[in-house]
């Protein structure tokens, strides 16, 4: 192969999704556009994804970061999502949550393994930079499989 690259240098892939019941997508649309405009590849879904569907998507699309938008109370499901990802062997994937998350719940989410909660009012710069750092971290994790 002529064009060899290391895994850390390649284009980050991010899954932007919503789980649970709510369907407001202004936030997730804006974040998806931000990430695209910063050179990332975004897999964007409809709202109301089931937890096992998100795990399946994470697997099939080989994403580095999973960004879940929650504006009502659907973030309450996130600990279950984290457990499902771990069970499927996807602990290297970084999970971030954006939207309206009360302080007490934020602590629970971080405890369950979420890397970061972005509250309303977060800036493009902050969101893009952190997500690209998380993508890089995810790429540095031990490979799920090696091809020899």
């Amino acid at each position, binding site marked *: 192969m002529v064009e060899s690259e290391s895994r850390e240098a390649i284009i980050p892939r991010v899954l*932007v999704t919503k789980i*649970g*019941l*709510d*369907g*407001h*997508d*202004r936030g*997730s*649309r*804006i974040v*998806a*556009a931000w990430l*695209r405009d910063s050179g990332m590849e*975004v897999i*964007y*879904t*409809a*709202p*109301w994804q089931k937890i096992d569907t998100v795990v399946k998507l994470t697997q099939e699309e080989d994403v580095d970061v999973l960004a879940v938008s929650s504006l*009502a*109370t*659907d973030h*309450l*499901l996130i600990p*279950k999502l984290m457990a499902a990802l771990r069970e499927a062997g996807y602990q290297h994937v970084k999970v971030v949550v954006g939207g*309206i998350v*009360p*302080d*007490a719940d934020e602590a629970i989410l971080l405890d369950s393994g979420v890397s970061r909660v972005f*509250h*309303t*009012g977060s*800036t*493009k*710069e902050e969101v893009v930079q952190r997500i690209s750092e998380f993508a890089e971290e995810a790429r540095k994790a031990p490979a799920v499989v090696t091809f020899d």
Partner: protein
Amino acid sequence: MTDKRIDNKHKQWQDDYKKMLPDDKVRSNRSDIKIKPLYTPEDWDSNRYMDDLGFPGQGPMTRGIYPTMHRGQTWSQRQLIGLATPELYNARVKQMIAMGANALSMIPCNSVYRGLDVDEVDPILLGTCGVTVNTVDDMARCLDGIPIDKMSIGLNDPIPFTMLAQVLAHAKNLGAPWKKLTGTSNQSDYISHFVANHMFYRIALKGSRRIQMDQIIFLKEHCPGWNPVSIVGQHMQQAGATPAEAMGLTLSTAIQYAKDCVERGLEPDAFLPRFTFFFDISISFFEEIAKFRAGRRVWARLTKERFGAKDPRSSRFKFHCQTSGVDLTRAQPLNNIARVAIQGMAGIFGGCQSMHTDGYDEALSCPTEEAALISVATQNILKDEAGMTDVIDALGGSYYLETLTNQMEEQIEAIIAKIDEAGGMFEAVENGLVQGIIGESALAFQEKVDSGEHKIVGVNAYQIEDDPSLRKTQPWPDPDVMKRQIELFCRFKEERDQTEVQRALEDLVAAARSDDQNVYEKIVQATISKATQGEIISCLREEFGFGHPLVMA
């Protein structure tokens, strides 16, 4: 007006202004209209009074839809409330009535919006944002002891209107005649749900269209005091449409629904008086007032010109409005009380018929009781202390506001023309045109915030150190209380006459498959027969297709 003195002085002022403020920046509002530093009779002069304004309750309707406006009757204080269980809801409503609320409204749990019963959802999500109302029995407990025939009822009840069916079933059980009920189906606008609030979008477009028309026809005969159609601009503005776009798109939606009614053989003057509107009020104060005044004018004109309405009631632009949660901040949350007050003022000067003011903690969680009480008090302060209802259209005649109203009207008309050209609202949303417009505007606004061009106190300006103690949040519902609600629901399902439920659902399916039966009538009958909302909606999804929004990134 050819007053030489004005010309001379105007010129002199312009020179002075430029000298003192040589690097004055261009300012524009959210609808991208450039705002000048000063407006004068050159922009709008009172010779245009009869063309542009007229008198309240008369064409062109700019100043208000009734001769007396808020002097005669202030707006309905329609605070949306939804607490986890029917009992908690009932207690809160009684408290609000004691505080002077003259209308009641109901927000269901998000699971209800999705058409799911309490036994179909992860219990952790139940009752977190509204009341879990799945059956006629739940509704009876919500409304226990409340004189439903004496209160205007607002239901956040998307198609297929199962909550209204529960209210009708409850009334029937009480022996209260349907003809005496008044209220509004606040969330009947499936187009806005398809475009911008997907949580409310349950049944595929064509099926939603059919059920909406069947409901209008059913209520016209059986419950004529009910407003079946509320066209909702709120979701589109919340999703990012500018105020002018939100108004234009909402009026285009109204045109679509009116055309659909005409196609079903209804006379314009038979249904237009029952159309109501529902808007967001952002903090862009003058722009919002101009939006409402311009919208009123355009609606009055197009009901006559397009639909040949003769009844003056057909041309009245009755609207409910809600202060915008998008403008509220997580940082320094108490500041939101000031924001809501300003948004509320814009609603009043805009001539609203009904208003909901948000709790200051909307950006933190579902509203706490404290925040809900402050938001009601805010309305009372504006109404009773600040003298905001003393004069009808109190800002009318302002050079700025009249110019802005005309400019907003131009933009609104341009949007309507664009949607007309695309074949009407139904087609324009099916192919994603509207979603594209809204997404672009949302991004453009966000860029203004990111660049600091649009300042938000505490977010990109005047930040102070974060004080988490200011963020009180509503505790999540007591799991035991929710468990009891689930048990009640399961017992209700067990104890009902299963064959009757089965028969009622079969009738519903048959109606959905037929061309001439009224689907809504069967929904009401199924509810009376104790079918749950989850059962009814899943039946209709099976027949008409699941409501998948056109998701665009």
